[in-house]
């Protein structure tokens, strides 16, 4: 039963939009025909502080209501967060997705590439967000880029459903956000391989 459920853990900082990204992704997964839930953990929310969000997706409407300790996916919106937190509990063979430039692999979190434990994907979401003018107070808002990449790699949410969900939840810069989703999906790369 537990095997049919996929668990995602998202790491970012307050202001990067990971809480709303988790809800958008869960909704797109639900529209694609699976049950999904998204939730987040935070203290008193503030810009720049570490924020963790979770997504569960599966065939059964019943799901546990605990945090996710052994995710199938770890998605890092901000690679400057501490290494230990990021890779903790990621399943053997699990997927790590990082917002980082393709030629900056030395700065991947932890020993991400050591021992072929994980499949590692990169997408330069900061660059893409800036290119589409997605910034708040000078800081890039990378969430829609990361959503496009997550949809492509996981294959459990279509880009059309992502865009439908984004339209409900994000009112500002809609066109730029839709372009960001598409570019995130196109530019995500598996380290040492091709995207599935």
């Amino acid at each position, binding site marked *: 039963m537990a095997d049919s459920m996929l668990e995602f853990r998202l790491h970012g900082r307050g202001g990067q939009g990971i809480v709303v990204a988790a809800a958008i992704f869960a909704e797109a997964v639900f529209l694609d025909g699976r049950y999904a839930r998204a939730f987040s953990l935070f203290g*008193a929310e503030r810009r720049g502080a570490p924020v963790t969000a979770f997504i569960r997706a599966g065939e059964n409407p019943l799901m546990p209501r605990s945090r996710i300790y052994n995710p199938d996916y770890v998605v890092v919106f901000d690679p400057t967060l501490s290494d230990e937190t990021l890779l903790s509990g990621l399943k053997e063979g699990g997927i790590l997705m990082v917002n980082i430039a393709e030629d900056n692999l030395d700065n991947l979190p932890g020993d991400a590439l050591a021992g072929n434990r994980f499949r590692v994907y990169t997408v330069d979401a900061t660059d893409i967000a800036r290119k589409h003018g997605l910034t708040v107070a000078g800081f890039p808002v990378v969430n829609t880029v990361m959503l496009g990449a997550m949809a492509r790699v996981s294959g459990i949410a279509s880009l059309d459903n992502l865009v439908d969900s984004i339209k409900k939840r994000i009112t500002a810069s809609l066109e730029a956000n839709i372009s960001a989703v598409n570019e995130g999906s196109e530019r995500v790369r598996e380290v040492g391989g091709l995207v599935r």
Partner: protein
Amino acid sequence: MPYELISGCQAAAIAVQRAGVDLVAAYPITPQTAIVETLANFEAKGELGGEFVSVESEYSALSCCNGAVAAGARVFTATSSHGLAYMHEMIQWCSGARFPIVMVNVNRAVGAPWVLDPDQGDSLSQRDTGWMQIYCANAQEVFDTVLQAFMLSEELLLPSLVVFDGFYISHTYEPVDVPEVEKVREFIGPPQFQAQVEPGVQANLHGLSKGETQLQLVRRRHEDMLRAPQVFTAINEKFYRVFGRSYKTVDATIPEGSKTAFLAAGSTAETVKWFLPELKGCGLIQLRMFRPFPGDELGRIVEEQGLERLIIVDRNCSTGTGGYFAQEVRAALYGLTVRPVIQDLLLAGGIDLTKDILAGAAEKSPGDKLVDQEWGVELK
């Protein structure tokens, strides 16, 4: 079916809008803030159908509701933690006055220190104040229970507290069947209870009385609340015919041959239920109604299933005694000929309930104390 992916807080607020209220008076506090925000948005768009009163405190919120309900209005408020504690005096005034108010409390630990995690002590500490209390395990239950609470309260002339966990439900986005406003309003109908005051007529409500009068009033209130399980069942039979869902005061999922059951109220019930296939020999009892305490129904389940051991998930602690739910279960089952062993799994502070904690508790002997640190629970 019109499913939407919404949070537990949004589910509560949309249920209030669907039910149709004359007045909402509320003050925001984490993790309940999204309820107040969502209701304020309805008002801003002209879709609330009633007045939204921004107040300066929780004490004022409930006072405002008390005044409106005395005039025959259907009212709603919501709070958490310190907000509920601040209402404590008005909470009792409200039930004494037999005001059928519906309030949501989103569980959050009460300080000191400041904690945002979903300890249940805020609502459980109000158990003796004359309010009915119902605990929800997911956002659909939140939506449906808020609707049903208006009917239950208005039938019994007693206030209802609908309770769910902070973050695990309040901030979880999940699919919820949200029926159209017309369908819900046709089902619930307008409030039927009598106003205690009328415009232009001078009245003095709840004036100085003697102890003998209070005894009569307390007894009547107590007897009326004891009817709640029966009224709740009748409401759910009707609810099922219209919406295809119904709930029990206590629900049991006991796999064949299991002699141990976890008892949980709120979101932890879903965690236990999910892990049951990995917890051999264990079942789940989900407690929805807490006031009045459905002791007869619980006793019937324990006897019918021949349960020998109950592990009570208490994400709370009554200092000096232990978990509230364990206390209540012990008292309720004292009259059984064969009583199960009752063990208290104390997760006060609102800490996360994991498979390791559940498996660790299940593996213990019936005589052992269940101490959470032994299973490596991360205490922050």
